[in-house]
């Protein structure tokens, strides 16, 4: 932030107070014995002042998010469904990396699952047929459906 103002300071204060009062909460990481990697992804549509959406995602091996992502999107989208697709596209590299990393550590990965709460997005990501115009969207969709096709990740609605 180039020019933080008074408002931002208050938001920072809120954060610091929150952290102070919850400093005894540990981050607990653990793996279950399913050999799956779970990713939960969601997008908040047009929450930024420039009407861009925000991504939120977490990767877990069973308990606790080993990697958590919260990032603003870089492109404007027209609907929540599109924003969700962009979100999955943004986090896919991380999910693929963790799969490769776990495999290289000599462990098994049965399934690499991405959970999303928007059925339309999941269907578009699965099938890769785009009803939406726009080059970038097609690439995101293509990317996710390719990954799916190569059995590197599975999409779930839930």
């Amino acid at each position, binding site marked *: *932030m180039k*020019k*933080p*103002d*008074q*408002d*931002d*300071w*208050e*938001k*920072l*204060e*809120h*954060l*610091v107070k*929150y*952290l*102070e009062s*919850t*400093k*005894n*909460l*540990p*981050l*607990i*990481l*653990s*793996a279950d014995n399913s050999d799956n990697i779970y990713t939960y992804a969601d997008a908040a549509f047009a*929450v*930024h*002042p420039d009407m861009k959406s*925000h991504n*939120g995602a*977490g990767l877990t091996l069973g*308990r606790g*998010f080993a990697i*958590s*992502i*919260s*990032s*603003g999107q870089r492109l404007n989208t027209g609907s929540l469904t599109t924003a969700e697709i962009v979100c999955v596209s943004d986090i896919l590299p991380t999910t693929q*990396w963790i799969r*490769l*990393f776990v495999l*290289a*550590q*000599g462990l098994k990965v049965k399934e690499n699952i991405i959970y999303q709460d928007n059925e339309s997005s999941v269907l578009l990501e699965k099938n890769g047929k785009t009803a939406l115009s726009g080059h970038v969207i097609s690439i995101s969709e293509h990317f996710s459906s390719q990954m799916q096709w190569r059995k590197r990740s599975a999409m779930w609605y839930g």
Partner: protein
Amino acid sequence: MFYKKLVAALKSYGFEFNLYDVCVANKTVDGSVVTICFHVDGCKISCVSTKVVDETISRLRNDFEVVFEDGSGTMKVHRGKRHEFVGMSLDYSHKGEVHILMIRYVQDLVDTFKQAQLTLDDGFIKVKKKSRSSTQLTAAPKNLFVVNEECKPLSDAARVMYHSMVAKCLYFAKRARPDAMTAMSFLTK
């Protein structure tokens, strides 16, 4: 330079590096896997058998320990289920779990913030005593993404403080508190 030396040494011990993370190496000894993760010059060695860990430590000590005349430079070894590293405390005492806490780091952070508020509070950064619900249990205030255009920008001193505090919080959120990430991503933007 140090990295290259460490990598060469570990490779000569028979470690294989993870292709997808250059700071993680593995080696199989008698059917159990030894894993070394390192950050600059701090190594975390984990293995089922303590004997193998001992062995690895002594080899590393042999090759890397340089003790200066005043006694500094000794390699510090910390064994057990609880470890302190760059502000984090890693607790492996629960079976199959790791608990990450950064209590002292947060305390420092809060103290610095309070100090900053005292020194910078020249009537400018007065925190409004409005009815902020005390029960709100999230890191992000409800109006996080609402930008108030009428607010005055911070003074130079306050701005420097702001950036340094945000950076500290970011470090903490990235390591131990993913629930604060939303607020972080807005405040750093």
